C-alpha cells in the first residue's frame, strides 16, 4: 500500500512547516493522527533542499527513532534506525547497510512554497 492510502496521510498541498524549523543537515519528525496508527513523516534538510520519507524502517516496520525527535545521523548524510541499525542514505532513502539492505525508505514528494514546506503532487 502506498503512503497515500494511509488514513492520516496529508493531502497534496498540505503545508508541513517552515524550512527554518528543520536545521540544516538535520531531521525533523511530523505526526498526523493519533496513537499507534498515526502517519509519521520524516523531513531532512540540506541547504535549501528538503527530502521527506515515511518514518518507517522497512526491516521491522518500526519508526527510525526510538525517542521523539532523536535521530541517529551519520556523516550528516545517512540515518541509522535506532532499533536494529539499518542505515539509509538520506539523499534517496536507499538502505546502504544493515538488516534492510536492498530496501529503502518510502519517499514523500515535497515542494517549497516560499519558505513553507508543502506536500507535493503525486
Amino acid at each position, binding site marked *: 500500500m502506498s503512503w497515500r492510502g494511509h488514513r492520516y496521510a496529508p493531502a497534496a498541498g498540505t503545508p508541513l512547516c517552515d524550512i527554518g524549523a528543520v*536545521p540544516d*543537515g*538535520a*531531521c525533523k519528525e511530523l505526526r498526523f493522527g493519533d496513537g*499507534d496508527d498515526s502517519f509519521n513523516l520524516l523531513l531532512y534538510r540540506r541547504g535549501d533542499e528538503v527530502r521527506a520519507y515515511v518514518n518507517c524502517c*522497512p*526491516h*521491522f*516496520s*518500526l*519508526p527510525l*527513532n*526510538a*525517542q521523539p*525527535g*532523536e*535521530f*541517529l*545521523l*551519520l*556523516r*550528516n548524510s545517512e540515518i*541509522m*534506525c*535506532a*532499533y*536494529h*541499525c*539499518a542505515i539509509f542514505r538520506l539523499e534517496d532513502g536507499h538502505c546502504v547497510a*544493515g*538488516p*534492510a*539492505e*536492498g*530496501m529503502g525508505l518510502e519517499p514523500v514528494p515535497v515542494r517549497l512554497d516560499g519558505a513553507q514546506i508543502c506536500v507535493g503532487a503525486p
Partner: protein
Amino acid sequence: MSSQSAVEGLVQATPASNRTGYRSFQLGSFHFSRDEYFARVTWPAKGQTMSHSMPADAFLRAMMRDIAWGFFYGLVNFDHVLGTRNLYGRVELYAGRYHETYHEKGLDHVEVFETPQIMATFKAILEDWTNEGFDPFAAPAETGSEWVGAKHGSNRAAIERQRTACKRMPGLPGDAELRADANGYPVNRAFADVPQDEPQVQAEPGFENEVHAFSLFGYLSRSDVTWNPSVSSVCGRSLCCPTTEEYLLPIKHGNDRVEWFVQLSDQIEWEIEDKDTGSPRAKVLMKAGDVAAMPADIRHQGLSRKRSMLLVWENATPGLPDLYESGKLKPYPIEF
C-alpha cells in the same frame, strides 16, 4: 546524547599480530583479542584487569547474530559473562553485569556506547577474526574448523549476506522474493523431504489481487542460515519471524518483551534462566506443534539436535520495554 548524533564509527585497532595475524580492538575500557582458539576480552574492575575467554567460534557466532540483528531486542548474552543490551540509539556493553557472582563482588563492568561506534567496532572484529571457509551463520556440520588457527583469509560474503525482511509478506508484488534455486536459496540438506509446491489460491471475482499465500515450510526449507529469524509477515506491530535452528543458539537472549514460540517441526530444548542473575528457572522441550510464551524477565538458549523450524512471533510495539520495566505489564501474558 545529542538529539542529532553525528558519531563517526571510529574503530581503535592494533596492527595485525606478528604471531597470529589477528588485530586487537579497544572499545572504551574493553579490550578484545583473539588467538588460535580463543577470543579474549578484558575490562577494569576494582583496580585490576579482569579477563574472560570464549572459544573463538562461539564468540564469532554470537557476534554475527548481534550484528545481524542490530543488537536485537533487550539482552544479547554472548555467554554467561559478556553481552550487549540494546538501548535503541545507544548500546550497553557489559561483562559480568548479569552474572550473580561477578555483579555481587563488584567485578563487573558496563559501558554505554553510541550505536554507530559499537556497531563499527563489532563489524571490524568480525571481519578480521573470521577466516576463509568459516561461516558463523552456518551449523557446525556445514562449516568446518577453519575458525581454528592463525589468520588465513576472510569470508566477507558470509558475514555480509543480505538478511531477509518483508513489508507485508514474501511473494507479494514489490515485496521480498520467495526463495528458490534460481535466486540462491537451495533446499537445505535437512529438509529434502519438504514439499515445494505452493498453495492453490482460487479467489472469487473481484478479489484476485487481495488474496495471497505461500508455503511457509517450503520457504523455511530454503533458509541459508541458522538461528537468524527472517520476517515473513507484517501486520501492524505483529511480526512473524520464522527461522531454522540447528545445534546451539549462539547467544542467551534476554528479551525485553514477551515473545511467542511455535515449534513447527522437530524439537528444541530450551534452557531458561533468570534474566538478571542467570540462575536456572526451567528446561522446556518443545516438540512440533508446541507453543510457548517466553516471559520478558528471562533469558533463553535453545539446543536443536537436528535442523528444525521455529516460528518466533514478536510484538514490535514501540515503548513496550518501558511498560515491562515499569511493571505496568507483567512479564508473562497469562496468570494460572
